[in-house]
């Protein structure tokens, strides 16, 4: 059976049209390729330090 109050709390407000610009600015566009590149870069940098 539905817990009405709990279900209601799961509903989130919709993004309003006026907030589109802020939403774009706040978008996290980091993808898996970026993460991998960072990991590789950090790995190579630490290797150089160790050497």
């Amino acid at each position, binding site marked *: 059976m539905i817990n009405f109050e709990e279900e*209601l709390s799961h*509903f989130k407000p919709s993004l*309003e*049209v006026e907030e589109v610009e802020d939403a774009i600015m706040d*978008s996290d566009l980091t*993808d*898996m390729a970026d993460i991998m590149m960072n990991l590789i870069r950090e790995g190579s940098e630490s290797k150089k330090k160790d050497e």
Partner: protein
Amino acid sequence: MSKPINYTDKCSRISNAFYNAGLEKAQIRDLTGACRCLKRSLEFDKYNTSARNLLGLIYYETGETAEALVQWVISSNLQQEHNRATHYIYEVQGEPGRLEDESVHIRRYNQALIQAQNDNPDLAILQLGRVVDHKPNYVKAHMLLALLYIGQENYTKAGKSLYKVLQIDKNNPKALWYMSIVKSNTGRADVEKRRLKNAFSHHQMQDDDIILPPSYRENTGWQMVLHIAAGLAMGAAVIFFLVMPAREEQLNDSHNQEMAQVLEQVNQKSMEIDGIEASMAVMESERDTAEADLKAIMDENGGVLSQYQQLAHILQAYRADDFPTAVELYTELNPELIEDEGMQMIITEIRQDMEERGYQVLADLAGQARDAGNTDQALMYYQKSLDIKEDNPQVIYDMAMVYHDREEEDKANELFGQVIMNYPDTDLAEKAKEIRGY
């Protein structure tokens, strides 16, 4: 340096795989599943424009216009040429007022959510009803509305909202869950369960099994009565709605035709009556003219016929040698009405005789009447004498004396004045002056 390239390539491949899965799900309207796949696709490759554009389309389809714009704007920034997102943005923003309307409905949904979360479900339902009327694909609004109806145990209305959600997003897990609750509360779940059981059950036919046609129903007594009553009601309705209007129209048509014929006859009769009245008026006018002519002829005093009679009487008086009577009759004659030339000659002779001696006869008659004390008759004879001969101072004087005796001084003085003025050197003038007191 070959490793990073491999990883990027692998990420791109995984992203494409998720995009393909998302596309398949979108094509069968599993929008929630498609959305999940496309988000995952973008997590692996943010430059996967197709995935981002499709995600925007799915947001737009579910009523999340702002979210769709976010994805399309990012997409068009990451790939500025040959990008379908530019067209989508133009479509949404190009039509005047469309974006404003979208904004109003989204804001209204947010207000309704706040009202619902603050124990004001009635107002929230009202707001959401208006939102879904204008924006029927707004999944979130339908879902919240369904939840509020379920909270009020109005499962039928909740079911309607959920049905619309599932038409847009077939595998929306929350909508499916709410729908299952709605069905269990409305008894719909049992019906579907039985139907499924019947559809997929396998039963070995026995020799004595009877297959009843699906249309066959065994009726009980009261059902039969009900069916007969329904049939009668339908028959009555058919007569009332189909037969009666046609019959009524037919009667109206025949009645209208009869009325038109009667009106035409009335018009003809009216025209005939008008013609008769006009001819009657002409005939009455002619009759009046004829009567007037006849009256003019028959008139005792001035009529033509009476003048002829008067002339005959005068001639008869002459023949009887009764000149005074002839004179009296002549004074009442109007010679102008007698147009006959032969008669005119006789009248001329009579007029000459009257001017020579007739006036004196009248003056004598007037004197006799005055002496007898009949002044009215005396004045009448004097006036007739003057009508025949105006230039007669004696008669004027005598007439003035009659007025003087009757103490009608104004008329007497006027006549005395005529004698004094017109005949100054006569004795009568002197006498008149004396009487007037000159």
